């Protein structure tokens, strides 16, 4: 039983590690083996061939790909991410100055979104088939099938332009009190919350509906247990695993959302840093950011799977 769980968890972690290595290889392959001469790009069309060749040597682009790949993997592990091709600053410093902002945005969003989503999911599951359930269902489908920037611009139109509760564009700048925090984070967090809640509420509802239709819940109902007792006492403890799975998995949607949200609100996080890096084709910066995002994504997806493994009663009781 515990040994079985341990073995499953170990397999899962090894699989995640293998995936991470695969992702690193893919990122390296896309950004290196294929055309798109960085040196030429940086110096422009007017550059002399000598100048281009010089820069290629300086950037280490003349070394054979396999050798470069191994060196790059080594550097990745030791945290030496190279220098930006655009301004020459170390990539670690660039990311370091921004990552706190992104984590803060993600943390606030998670704090707001998780309770809302679980609340919506549970209530929709309990009153399934009701008008409320159908409204929640329709609203979540709507948000899921719409681009994030529509959610963001609609939020700006409603809350900044019409109601004028918050300014349209949030500059991080000086934060001197709670009012400033609300001013800066309100719209980005609201947009991200919409995106994440839609997915999470749907999955939470599905998980709980699954449990509520099981025979032991039917039994509890036949014994005359009230609806609240059935949900809180019988259904929820068994749905915690699937719900934790839903939460972790849905949080991975933050990564996609944050790229759009940081851009639209010019929020100084790493997603904005990466998008700017892509526009200037600053490959070391893009590689590092991509690995960071893929790593975060893998952590969340692995956490979702671990929650599912730990919560499986067949494994727990052997």
């Amino acid at each position, binding site marked *: 039983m515990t040994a079985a769980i341990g073995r499953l968890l170990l397999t899962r972690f090894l699989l995640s590690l293998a995936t991470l290595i695969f992702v690193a290889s893919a990122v390296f392959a896309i950004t290196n083996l294929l055309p798109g001469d960085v040196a030429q790009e940086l110096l422009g069309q007017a550059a002399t061939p000598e100048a281009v060749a010089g820069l290629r040597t300086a950037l280490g682009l003349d070394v054979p790909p396999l050798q470069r790949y191994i060196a790059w993997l080594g550097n990745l592990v030791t945290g030496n991410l190279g220098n930006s091709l655009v301004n020459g600053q170390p990539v670690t410093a660039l990311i370091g100055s921004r990552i706190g902002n992104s984590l803060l945005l993600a943390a606030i969003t998670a704090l707001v979104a998780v309770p809302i989503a679980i609340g919506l999911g549970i209530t929709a599951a309990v009153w399934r088939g009701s008008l409320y359930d159908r409204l929640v269902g*329709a609203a979540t489908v709507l948000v899921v099938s719409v681009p994030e920037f529509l959610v963001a611009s609609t939020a700006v*139109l409603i809350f900044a332009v019409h109601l004028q509760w918050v300014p349209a564009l949030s500059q991080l700048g000086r934060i001197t009190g709670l009012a400033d925090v609300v001013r800066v984070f309100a719209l980005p967090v609201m947009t991200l919350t919409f995106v994440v809640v839609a997915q999470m509420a749907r999955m939470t509802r599905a998980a709980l509906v699954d449990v509520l239709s099981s025979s032991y819940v039917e039994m509890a109902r036949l014994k005359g247990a009230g609806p609240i007792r059935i949900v809180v006492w019988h259904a929820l403890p068994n749905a915690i695993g699937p719900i934790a799975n839903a939460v972790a998995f849905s949080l991975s949607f933050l990564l996609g959302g944050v790229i759009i949200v940081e851009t639209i609100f010019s929020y100084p996080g790493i997603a904005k840093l990466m998008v700017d890096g892509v526009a200037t084709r600053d490959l070391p910066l893009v590689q590092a950011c991509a690995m960071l995002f*893929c790593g975060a994504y893998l952590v969340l997806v692995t956490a979702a799977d671990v929650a599912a493994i730990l919560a499986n009663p067949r494994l727990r009781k052997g």
Partner: protein
Amino acid sequence: MTTATATRPRRRLRLVRYVAPLIVVGWIAVALGGAAIAPYDPAAIQDADLFEGMSRAYWLGTDFFGRDMLSRIMAGARQTVGIALVATLLAVGTGLLLGLAASAIGGIVDAVLSRMLDALISIPSKLFGLVVVAAFGSSVPVLILTMAIIYVPGCYRMVRSVAVNVAALDFVIAARARGEGTFYIMIREILPNMVSPVLADFGLRFIYVVLLLSSLSFLGLGVQPPAADWGSLVRENIGGLPQGAPAVVMPAFAIASLTIAVNLTIDAFFSGRSRDGVH
């Protein structure tokens, strides 16, 4: 996808059955007609203010140059719908062939294909797009290929999971016993029995592709000016957002109307039948 429509009253369902496909067909028609059926030249600067509101002359207002927004959205439909359709066709075509091959051949082919494509899924789609654009720059062929590659694994997974079940049925075993080739079994025996899940999957991938393409364009990394798809239209007019200009939201609404209509069309036509997998 969702089964929400299944619980709705019948009359609403019937309405959705007609309205949603009509919107989809309408956008395809606009994409084909393109600038030819637009009220103004989408590139011409009109005798109007920048970011004008909706008026009788300019139904959806004007953009940051004072160009007619409705005409620009109609011209953008060709980019969005066209690129997304080609990318989806490529993705679903490849996924379908690989999935059928995996289920019909089985064994090591199946195992290797499944592992490789599963690994590809572990890269979030937007990130994959960003990395490719950083390496190659952005052009329409690069965009189409990238999005096709991104959505092959999802389609493959779906096709394989359905096809493996079909491949275990008696008539496939009978065909094998008759000595039919693998390709014949894939196309003539398995495929006809999974038409509706594949069509539903096509619609779903199309939605994903439209959303990804719009997102990339919105970030300035998709369709490049002077061409503009709906995502680019949102980006170039984002300065009008604080004034509440329709130029910002209207292209976004166009995207939403397309994706939601496709979603509802799938629901109305395939959600009931996709489960048994028999057309």
